[in-house]
Every structure is written in structure tokens, then in C-alpha cells.
């Protein structure tokens, strides 16, 4: 059930272009792919980074990464209240980006996306910043990615978990759903979705600390909702707190081979941990939308 089934064709090694090399050759990329710390270091999200690079290579976009010159955007520091550290990080990154004359940035992390797009301009960093869900949506709309030729997701149950920093923070709700819709899968919406989506529990630097004492972990609350949505356990969804976007009760369905789709590295960690907590990891998988696209396109190796 892993979306790594290789399609027919040649394997090709990718040498990811680094900005410093391009600059040395006096070249400039069309887009800079901002990998982010999770994309670079977190074993699970590295697979998302690699899937996204395969897509970039596949469509022939002229891209580059900063490689070792990239540093934390400062998002976790700023959300935790350490404005000083945030600004140090931001200025360092802005110096690097401006030094290369970067105009357009794509990133697979909503936190990096939000920080660079909204908080760098006040510190002298003005770029066009695109989240990978929007970028993938554009590739699909332009026909550059056909989401065919690889693994078929037809009929598989997928529910999308909205990342706070993409959704409420920046009002992007449809791009990831459009990408998933292209998979021809069976998309089901959680009751708390879009502007009413429930946080995975990792934002605001929670990713790096233990939660405060309470009755339950937030990621468990959210994962239970996702699982109940996928399996159509209406009674489990009867007493959710918060505002519900979706009113209709889902129909009963076997959980087997269902997917929770995310588009944020921290949501990935929280939802994966939640699925393990509910002991459903053999039946339900958590994938980033870029992984699903690369898999459907048949370009994984």
C-alpha cells in the first residue's frame, strides 16, 4: 500500500541544484525550493522533500535549493515569544536570499511559508512565496502533471487535515483539495475542516515541548476525528467540540487502506503519532500531498 510502487521506466539519479553553484555560473533559478528544517532533517518528511524534488525534475522546472546555506526561518522562536532569535534568523536568511536575488520561493512547510511570506517583508525580505499545495495545484491545472501512470488511488478513502498556518493563517483551503481531487480518490471531509479545522497540536512551538496537563493530547483528538470520518463512525463524531463545517454523517466504511493527507511536516508527525496511538498504522497511512502526487505520477524510484 506504500505509494512507492515503481512505474516502468529508467531510474535516473538526481543531483539537486544548489543556489551557490548556480550563482557561480551566473544562472538564476525560476524558483527557489525552501526545504525547511523538517524537510531536511526529519526522516519522515525527508521523503516528502524527495518526492517534491522528483516532481520538480519531472516537470522540468528550473529550481535550486540553498543547501547548507539554509537556516531555520525563526518561526518556532517567534511563536514561542523569542522575537530576538527570530529576527536574527530572519535577517540572516534575508541576507542570503537577497544576496542571490531570489524572487520566487516554493516551500512544503506552511510555517516557513507563513513566516517568509508575511513576516520577512517588515525586515527587508520581499519575495513571491508559494506553498507546495498551490504549486502542485498549478502544475495539475496546467497539465504538467497528469497524476496518471503510477499508483491508482481510485476509490481509496482520503481525508485532508488543514494545517493552521496554511488555512486560517493564510486562507488557503482549496489548493490542497484540488490536488487531492485530481487523484480520483474518495475524498471525505472531517466535520471540523477548512476555517473550522482543528489544530494537530504542534503549532506555536508545541512541537518541541510536552503538552500542558489536560485530559487528552490534541493530536489524539484530531486523529480520532480523522479515523472516525474515514470509517464512518458517526457516533464517534456526535459530540465533537468546536464549530462543524460538515453537517452530514459519513457512511460506514472499512478503514483498510485509508489515507490521512497532510501538507505540513508537523501535522505529519502529529497525525502519524496519533494513528500509532490508536493502533491503526497497519490500516491507515499518513501522506503528504506531494508524496501522493509523485506516487500517482509514477516517478518514485
Amino acid at each position, binding site marked *: 500500500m506504500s505509494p512507492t510502487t515503481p512505474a516502468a521506466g529508467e531510474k535516473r539519479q538526481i543531483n539537486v541544484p544548489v543556489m551557490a553553484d548556480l550563482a557561480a555560473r551566473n544562472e538564476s533559478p525560476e524558483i527557489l525550493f525552501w526545504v525547511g*528544517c523538517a524537510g531536511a532533517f526529519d526522516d519522515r518528511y525527508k521523503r516528502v522533500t524527495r518526492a517534491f524534488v522528483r516532481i520538480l525534475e519531472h516537470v522540468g522546472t528550473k529550481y535550486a535549493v540553498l543547501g547548507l546555506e539554509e537556516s531555520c526561518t525563526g518561526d518556532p522562536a517567534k511563536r514561542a515569544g523569542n522575537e530576538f532569535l527570530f529576527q536574527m534568523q530572519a535577517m540572516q536568511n534575508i*541576507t542570503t536570499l537577497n544576496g542571490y536575488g531570489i524572487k520566487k520561493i516554493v516551500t512544503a512547510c506552511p510555517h516557513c511559508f507563513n513566516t517568509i511570506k508575511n513576516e520577512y517583508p517588515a525586515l527587508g525580505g520581499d519575495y513571491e512565496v508559494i506553498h507546495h499545495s498551490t504549486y502542485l495545484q498549478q502544475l495539475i491545472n496546467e497539465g504538467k502533471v497528469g497524476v496518471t501512470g503510477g499508483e491508482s488511488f481510485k476509490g481509496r478513502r482520503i481525508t485532508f487535515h488543514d494545517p493552521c498556518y496554511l488555512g*486560517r493563517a493564510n486562507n488557503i483551503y482549496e489548493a490542497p483539495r484540488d490536488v487531492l481531487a485530481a487523484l480520483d480518490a474518495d475524498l471525505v471531509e472531517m466535520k471540523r475542516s477548512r476555517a473550522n479545522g482543528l489544530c494537530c497540536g504542534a503549532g506555536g512551538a508545541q512541537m518541541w515541548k510536552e503538552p500542558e496537563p489536560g485530559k487528552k493530547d490534541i493530536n489524539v483528538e484530531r486523529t480520532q476525528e480523522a479515523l472516525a470520518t474515514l470509517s464512518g463512525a458517526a457516533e464517534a463524531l456526535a459530540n465533537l467540540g468546536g464549530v462543524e463545517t460538515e453537517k452530514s454523517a459519513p457512511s460506514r466504511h472499512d478503514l483498510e487502506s485509508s489515507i490521512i493527507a497532510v501538507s505540513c511536516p508537523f501535522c505529519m508527525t502529529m497525525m502519524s503519532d496519533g494513528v500509532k496511538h490508536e493502533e491503526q498504522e497497519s490500516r491507515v497511512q499518513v501522506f503528504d500531498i506531494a508524496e501522493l502526487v509523485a506516487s500517482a505520477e509514477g516517478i518514485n524510484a
Partner: protein
Amino acid sequence: MLEQIIFFLLLVAASGLFVWQIRKIRANIFVGRPRDMSGNAAERFKKTVLVAFGQQKMFKRLTPALLHLIVYVGFIVINVEVLEIVVDGLTGTHRFLRFLGPGYDVLMATNEILGALVILAVVAFWWRRNRTQPVRRLTGVELRAWPKLDANIILYVEVVLMAALFTMNTADLKLHQVSGETMPGTFPISSLLVGLFPSDAGTLHVLERVGWWAHIIGIFLFLNYLPSSKHFHIIITFPNVWFSRLVPQGQFSNVESITHEVKAMMDPSYVVPPPAVGPDGSALAPTSFGAKDVEDLPWTSLMNAYSCTECGRCTSVCPANLTGKLLSPRKIIMDTRDRVEEKYESPLIFRPNMYGAEAKHEPVTDLANATLLRGKVTPEELWACTTCNACVESCPVNINPLESIIEMRRFLVLEESAAPNSLNVMFSNIENNGAPWAFSPSDRFNWADDLFATEKQQAATVA
């Protein structure tokens, strides 16, 4: 003539007292730090029309939205009749708007139907609050004692005002009937009630006057109750929505003073602007990083506190609160209002929330020095926030609890170095490794090693 003089004096006294109270609230709001919210008039106007006048955000929850709409529209329409009462009271006329003719019929009929609906809506509101298991968001540690009583007082006053209105109309109607005169206007509800009233003209006249005076005196009293109450939202919602943040919700405020420091560190030739000076030319004490007390918050956050109706939509969607953590965004907003009124100007009725063990509060003995941070809001509440913006999104009057939370976190981290230890570890990882985890920066590009893709023959044709 005596009635007119009494009315005039009451009108002047009620208005004067109200203006005096508003000035105190205004002063309280402007103890906050300056923040430039000028410009973008067209966008602000649109927001005010949609969110404040149009109650756009209320309609996320249909039942309370419809109940609230009835009371809101009732309030606005019945205020046209209050205008009539004021003119009648000052000039000694009776129902001076009768010159509207058929328009007066429509106005009075609308008033009466709305008045009856308001009573029904208020009963429903009361039931939602006071039954054995109230609506969940109408409970919580911050919603006991005065806030709970305040909510009910508002409902009771609304019923009393409507009852006075119906007494006045019914008595007037019957008075006209017994004396064989035609009453101007159409009164669908009062015409059902005339049977309950006596037929004696003298008594009816007294009843009509009692209803008239009770209604207007009730309004004068209620007007001056507003500044002590959450019901003040009926006024301050409009400026509060007008001065909403217009940037994406994910964009947190920039701390200018830190920007100057960081720029100076990175570029020694950078000229840091001179510190602010007082009117006498002496340097002012530097402001703290973040917020320890109300005056450290931007003035917009203090206006937020005065706009809160304590409806709890924020708390009901808060992921931390939903999973049993101490954090309640509503409590932080209510604490802010309590604290600014405790430290600066107090309203006529002032019963600040006192917390105990259930909110994990140390007993506060020294009220004057119990700052907003720690005195009312505990670090445990602040550190439970995931900055997910659900509270901001949910607030029907565009209050931003997240901004206050971040300002207090800034104080904890930058002034007190009081972050949880795990966060300090994260900070030093960012400083040393350029990543929040303890990975070597030289491994940052390892993800690109041995990266293969399957070449698609038809890639060109797909494109």
C-alpha cells in the same frame, strides 16, 4: 410641564453620566501602547458593514445567530420608538411620529412583533444559560459570580423593557377604545392584551404613563449599566471591528525596537534611532519586551477586552481547551478588562473575577501589584497555546486573543527567561545548528543523497 422638566433633567443626567463613563473607558483603552491603525478606510468600512452590522461571523452557529439577530434587529427598530419617546417627553406631544400615517402603522406593528419575538429569544437565551447542563461554552472558571449574574441581568432588563412597552401600548390602545377615539398606529400584540386591562379611563391613563416612564427610565438606567457590563459590546463592537487587523492572521506583529538592535548587530554602520523622549526632553524609561501588564499591550488589545461579550466561541474551538488544558482565550480577554479596570479607571459596578485552585491560581493578596501576567493569567495557560488562530477566526467581533498571548510569551521569554526548559533547548538548537532540533548543520543537505527518480517516457507528451 412638570413631566417635561423631569424628563429633561433625567435625559441630561443619564447622558452626562454615560459620557463620563465613556471617557473613563476611552482613557483605559489608551493606556495601551500606540499602534498605527490608520488608513484602508474602504476595507475597514466593508468589514464593519459585514462583521459588525451584518453579524457575518455569528452565522457559523445558526441557532444563537437567529436568536441574536432578533434581539439585535429589535433593539434597532425599537430605538426608533425611543426617539419618539424622547421627543414626546421633551415637547409634551403624544406619539408625535403619528404624522407618518400608514408608515406609523408599519413601524408600530413591526415594533410589537419584534418586541414579542425579543421576549421569546430572551427566554431561549436564559434557558441556554441557566438549565442544569448549560451550553458548554457558557460555562467555565471565568464565567461565575459577576459575569454569570451580569449575563442574566441583561436578559431580565430586556424583558422588563419589553413589558413596559407593551403596558404602555395596551393601556393607550384601551384608553382610546373606551373613549371611542381612533388610536394612531397598528398594534398586533397589544390588541390581544387589551382584554386583560381594566376599563377605567383613569387607571388606564396611569398604566400608560407607568409603562412610558418605566420604559424610558429603564433605558436610561440600562445605558449607564452598559459600561460595567459585557453588554457594552453593543457600542464598542463597531470601532473594534473597524480597527481590526487587516493582515493575514498568521502574521504576528514585528517588534521594532528589536529590529533596530539586530540591524545594528549585523551592520555596525546602522544608525539606531534615538530613544523616545518625554515632553521635557528627558529620555523615557525603555519599554519592556512583550507584556507584563495591561499598559504593555497595544491599545487595540484593550479595546478588544471591552468588546468581549463573553460568548465563549473562542474557548469552545480552542484545541487546548477542548482537550482539557487550562487555556481559555475568553479568560485572557476578560482578565485584561478586569485588570485595566482594577489598575486604572473602574466602572460603577466592578467585581473582577477571583480565581482559586480550579484555575491553578495562587491566592492573590496584593491586588494593586497583581499584574495581568501571573496575577491573572498564568504561564501554564500561555504555554498551552498552539497559535492555531481558531479563537481569532471564531470571534464574531474580531477580538484577537492570540496577540495578547504572544505579547505575554514575549515578556516571559525576553524579560524573565522563563520559557519551559524544552523550549530553551529548542532556542539554543536554532542558535547553534540553525534548526530547532539537535542536528549538525553539516547534515542539512543529506536528504539529497542517492536521490533517484523514474524517468517517464511520456513526460513530454503529458506536458
